[in-house]
C-alpha cells in the first residue's frame, strides 16, 4: 500500500462523509423538531437530482442556479407535504413513517412515468477535469460537493444558533411543551424544519447528480444511508449526525477501496446494529 492510495482514500472519505452529512442532516432535523420520520427522504434526494437533470442538462441553466432551484422546489414540496399529510398524524412517529411510505410510492411512480424508466439519466459535469495534487486525482465535482456541503452545513449551524427562528426550532426539538409555553409555535417550527430539511436533502441529490446514475429508484440506498447515520448519531442530534456521517463515510470508503461495495453496505449495517446493541440511544443522547 502506498502513500498515494492512502491519500486518495482519505480524500474519497472526506467527499463521501460530506455527502452523507448533507443527506442525513435534513432527516435528523425534521425528526428532532417534529417527530417526522420521513421514509420518502430518499425520494426527496432523487427529486433534487432530477431537477438538476431537467434544468441544467436539458434546459441549459447554470449548474449552481439549478442546485438552488432544486433546493427551493424540494423545500417547497416538503412544506406542502408537512402541512397536508404529516400534520394530522403528528405525535405518532410510526404512523407518520407509514404514511410517508405512501408518498414514497407516489413520487417514484410519478417520476418514473413522467420522465421514463429506461436508461438512467446522465448529468454532465459542470466543470470538466480534475485537480492533481501529489499524484492524487480529485474530480472537480468532488471539490464542489465537499465545499458546498461544508458551506450549507455551516449556514444551517449559523441559522440555528444566531437567528430567532433557529433558536425557536432548537427549542421545539428540545422540549416541545416547554417551547410552546414560551410562545413558540410548534406548527411553525415543524413547517420550517421540514422546509429546510427537505431543501438540504434536495441539495444533496442535486450536487451528487453528475457522479451517480439518476433514476427513480436511486432513493433506496440514500434512505438506508440516511437512516443509519441519523439513528447512530442519535435522532435529532445534528452534531451526532455529522460525526456519524464522517465515521460511516470513511468506513464505507475504506471497505469499498479494499473489498467491494456490497460488503461495504453489509458492514455499515452490521456496524450500526452493533453500535445500537451497545448503546441503544445512539452515539450521543438528545440535544441539537
Amino acid at each position, binding site marked *: 500500500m502506498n502513500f498515494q492510495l492512502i491519500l486518495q482514500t482519505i480524500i474519497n472519505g472526506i467527499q463521501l462523509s460530506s455527502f452523507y452529512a448533507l443527506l442525513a442532516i435534513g432527516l435528523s432535523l425534521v425528526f428532532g423538531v417534529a417527530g417526522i420520520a420521513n421514509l420518502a427522504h430518499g425520494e426527496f434526494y432523487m427529486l433534487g437530482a432530477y431537477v438538476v437533470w431537467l434544468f441544467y442538462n436539458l434546459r441549459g441553466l447554470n449548474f449552481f442556479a439549478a442546485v438552488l432551484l432544486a433546493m427551493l422546489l424540494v423545500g417547497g414540496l416538503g412544506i406542502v407535504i408537512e402541512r397536508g399529510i404529516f400534520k394530522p398524524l403528528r405525535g405518532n412517529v410510526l404512523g407518520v413513517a407509514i404514511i410517508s*411510505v405512501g408518498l414514497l410510492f407516489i413520487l417514484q411512480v410519478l417520476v418514473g412515468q413522467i420522465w421514463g424508466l429506461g436508461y438512467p439519466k446522465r448529468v454532465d459535469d459542470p466543470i470538466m477535469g480534475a485537480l492533481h495534487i501529489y499524484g492524487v486525482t480529485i474530480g472537480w465535482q468532488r471539490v464542489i460537493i465537499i465545499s458546498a456541503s461544508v458551506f450549507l452545513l455551516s449556514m444551517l449551524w449559523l441559522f440555528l444558533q444566531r437567528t430567532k427562528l433557529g433558536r425557536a426550532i432548537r427549542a421545539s426539538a428540545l422540549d416541545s411543551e416547554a417551547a410552546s409555553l414560551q410562545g413558540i409555535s410548534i406548527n411553525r417550527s415543524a413547517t420550517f424544519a421540514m422546509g429546510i430539511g427537505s431543501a438540504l436533502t434536495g441539495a444533496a441529490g442535486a450536487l451528487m447528480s453528475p457522479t451517480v446514475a439518476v433514476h427513480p429508484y436511486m432513493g433506496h440506498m440514500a434512505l438506508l444511508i440516511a437512516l443509519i447515520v441519523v*439513528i447512530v448519531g442519535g435522532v435529532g442530534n445534528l452534531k451526532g449526525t455529522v460525526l456519524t456521517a464522517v465515521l460511516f463515510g470513511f468506513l464505507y470508503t475504506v471497505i469499498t477501496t479494499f473489498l467491494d461495495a456490497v460488503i461495504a453496505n453489509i458492514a455499515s449495517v*452490521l456496524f450500526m446494529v452493533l453500535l445500537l446493541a451497545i448503546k441503544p440511544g445512539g452515539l450521543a443522547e438528545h440535544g441539537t
Partner: protein
Amino acid sequence: MGRNFLRPVIGLTALAIILIALPFIITRYYVDLSIVFFAHIILAVSFRLITTTGDFSLAHVPLMGMGAYASALISKYFGWPFWLALPLAALASTFVGLIMLYPLLRMKAFAFFIGSYAIGEALRLSWIRIGIFGGHRGISGIPHPSISFLGFRTINFSGVLPYYFLALAITVLCLLIIYRLDRSRVTDIFKAIHEEDSLVRSVGINVTAYRILAFEVGTFFAGISGVLLAHHFGHIDPHQFNLTTGLYLLIWVVVGGYATFAGPIIGVTFFTLLGELMRPLGAWMPLVYGIILIISLLFLPEGLESLPERMSPLLKKMGIRDRRT
C-alpha cells in the same frame, strides 16, 4: 345460542366449498394467483402476530426469503423431500430471526422498525454476495414437491391443481394455529406489552421472552410462506424480498387493520382484488397503493376492518330516518 353457534359454521362451510370448487372453475392464471394469495395471507397474518407486541418488523420479508432460500437449497442440492424441507426451512428462518433479535430486542417501536429494516437488508445483501445463494440471479429450477408414502406410492404436486390444494391445506393449518394463539392468554400479554411494557414487567412477566416468542412464531410462519412461494415459482432471487415487498406487506396490514385477526386477511384480499381490477394501470399501480395508504391513515386509521363499525351509526341514522318517513 344455537343460532350464534350455527352462523360461523355455515359461513365456514360455504367458504370451504367455494375454495375447493374454485380451482375447477377459474382459469390457470387465477389458480396461480390464488396460490400466491394464500402465501401472502400467511405472511400478513404472521406479520400482524408480531405487531401485537408493538414490534413492526421490516425484516419479515427477508426472513420469508430465508425460508424460500433454505427450502430451495435443501430440495435442490440435498434432494430431500418437501415435507422435510418445509419445517426445516421454517426453522432456518426462525434461527436467523433469533440471531437478528439479539440487537433488535434492545430497540422499541420506531427504532425497532428501522433496525429491523437495516438488519433485514443486511441478510438480503448477503444473498447477493455469498456464492451458494446464486447472487443477483438467485436460484432456479426449484423442484415441485412430491410426497411418497413409505416409498411405494407417490403424490406428485407438480401440477397446478394439486399444488393449489397443498397450499390451501398448509394455509388453513397455519391460520388455525395462529388463530388459536390469537385467542389464548398469550396474545393478551402481547397486547399488554404493546400498551404498557413497564407495567407488564412490574407484575413479574418477562417482557423480553414474550417479544421473542411473538417474533419467532411469526418468523416461523413467514418461512413457511416463503417455502410455498419458492416451490410455486420454481425460481427465487434477492430482488423479490426487497424493501418494496416489505412496504407492500406493511400497506396490506395497515390498510386492512391490525387490531384483530381478520384485519390482515381483509387487507390482502382487498389489495389482491384491487390489483386484478387495476391491472390495466400497470406501472401506475404503486401510486394507487400510495394514495389508498395515505387516505386510509388519514380517514380510517383503524383499517378496513373498522369500516362496518364506523358505518353503523350512519346506517342507524339512516334507518331511523326511514322509520320516520
